[in-house]
């Protein structure tokens, strides 16, 4: 098992954010975590990345306990809802950032970055700065910057939340394609039911700090809390009213 989260607990004062959360993520799979705003999804991802510290529980990756491992040594990349591209760096330098801090040879950095730019369809934008490209392109650069360093796991915190419907669809397809090409393992957090179903290989639902992991997609969509049935009923009613 690539990632194992064991009984993670987190409280802010008396308010319980995460209540003994556990999950297992296999290599080359994406787990979708569905949940409403404020249910604890972001806190869970930040704890896995090392940005926040849990009160109790273990984070184990490749059979190594990461509890005491610093953020930059975890090899786990966290992607915010905002692309957070470094505004003083070009598209090329943003993607190359993780390679440069690893002090790889120059030729290797150029080769890997160029390949990533091609795979993401960003040719011609290499020398542009983040304020010169569109929202979708920014998100592609953020993906590229994360993937190029070949991390253990990518944590995606509603990465398409700020995109319009069309760009969002295109980005979802691109992400599926890229995860296949680069054999990525990811936790994908979203509040959008359709997106959760589309992006995941395995599924989980989070509510008030409690995580339910499903054995398969059928069990996920048949759990009333996920809202899948309501969605189906809504469209059926629309159809009937015609």
């Amino acid at each position, binding site marked *: 098992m690539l990632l194992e989260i064991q009984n993670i607990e987190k409280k802010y004062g008396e308010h319980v954010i995460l209540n003994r959360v556990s999950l297992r993520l296999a290599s080359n799979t994406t787990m979708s975590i569905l949940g409403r705003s404020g249910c604890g999804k972001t806190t869970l991802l930040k704890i896995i*990345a*090392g*940005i926040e510290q849990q009160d109790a529980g273990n984070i184990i990756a490749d059979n190594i306990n990461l509890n005491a491992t*610093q*953020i*930059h040594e*975890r*090899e*786990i*990349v*966290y992607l*915010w809802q*905002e692309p*957070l591209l*470094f*505004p*003083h760096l070009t598209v090329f330098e943003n993607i190359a*950032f*993780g390679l*440069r*801090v*690893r002090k790889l040879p120059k030729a290797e950095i150029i080769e890997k970055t160029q390949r990533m730019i091609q795979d993401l369809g960003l040719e011609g934008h290499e020398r542009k700065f983040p304020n010169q490209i569109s929202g979708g392109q920014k998100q592609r650069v953020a993906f590229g*910057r*994360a993937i190029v*360093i070949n991390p253990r796991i990518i944590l995606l915190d509603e990465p398409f939340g700020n995109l319009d419907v069309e760009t969002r669809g295109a980005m979802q397809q691109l992400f599926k394609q890229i995860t296949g090409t680069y054999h990525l393992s990811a936790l994908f957090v979203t509040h959008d039911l359709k997106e959760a179903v589309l992006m995941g290989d395995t599924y989980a639902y989070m509510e008030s700090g409690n995580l339910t992991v499903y054995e398969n997609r059928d069990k996920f969509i048949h759990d009333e809390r996920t809202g899948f049935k309501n969605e189906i009923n809504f469209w059926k009613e629309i159809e009937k009213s015609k």
Partner: protein
Amino acid sequence: MFKKRPKFVVLWICLIFPILFLGMLAFSSTWRFPTLIPEFKDNSNFELMVSGDASFVMIFLRSVLISITVAIVSVATGFFIAKVIAFHKKRNLLLLLAYFPFALSPVVFAACLNYFFTLFLLSGTTPGVMIAQFIIVFPYAIILFNSHWGSGIIAYEQSAATLGGNAVQRFFRVTLPLSKNMLLIGFFQCFIISWFEFGLTNFIGMGQVKTLTVKVFQYIGEANIHLAAMSSLLLVIPPLLLLWANKKFVLRNY
């Protein structure tokens, strides 16, 4: 530009005239009614400006040294301590403490601190004046940088960390470039506060540490308008240079 926008002419006259007037007063020796402009009988003011230990050049250089040192130390320490405060549990209390030196008059504040300066033999010394000015400029730097740390820059740092950047790499590759303008603005403002500081400097300096601002007040007190103009002229040079640098290096990025 001036032909098309006559308002600029008026603005430039308003800006330049006081400086020209100061220059005229500084290098003149007398100006009695009904003479229209001051008289230039000799170059005694200019000689006074460049000669001896008590010359304006020496005082100017000492003032620059004090203000640059105070500004650099305040910005460097204030930047990092503001980060600690911005994410501290007792942030509001610590910020309130940072406002404390501004709640008192600088002279009253100096009187409160004077005992310690005397005890450590710092009264009447240049390092003593630097420390005294640091005590009021440093909290200002903290207040200034506190909003900077709250502006989302920490998310960029965290992003760089998850991409593998260690603390040093994060600082030099992300934090510093993103904070460059804010640091420059902070330096300019801290320099200006130190440069024009009078009450604390005069009290802790005990009249032995002469800065240009102290000199201006002294000459005004003596009703010596020519030497007051001379020191005022020197006094406005660094702020004008900073204003120019601010426009050239900082504002162009916005």
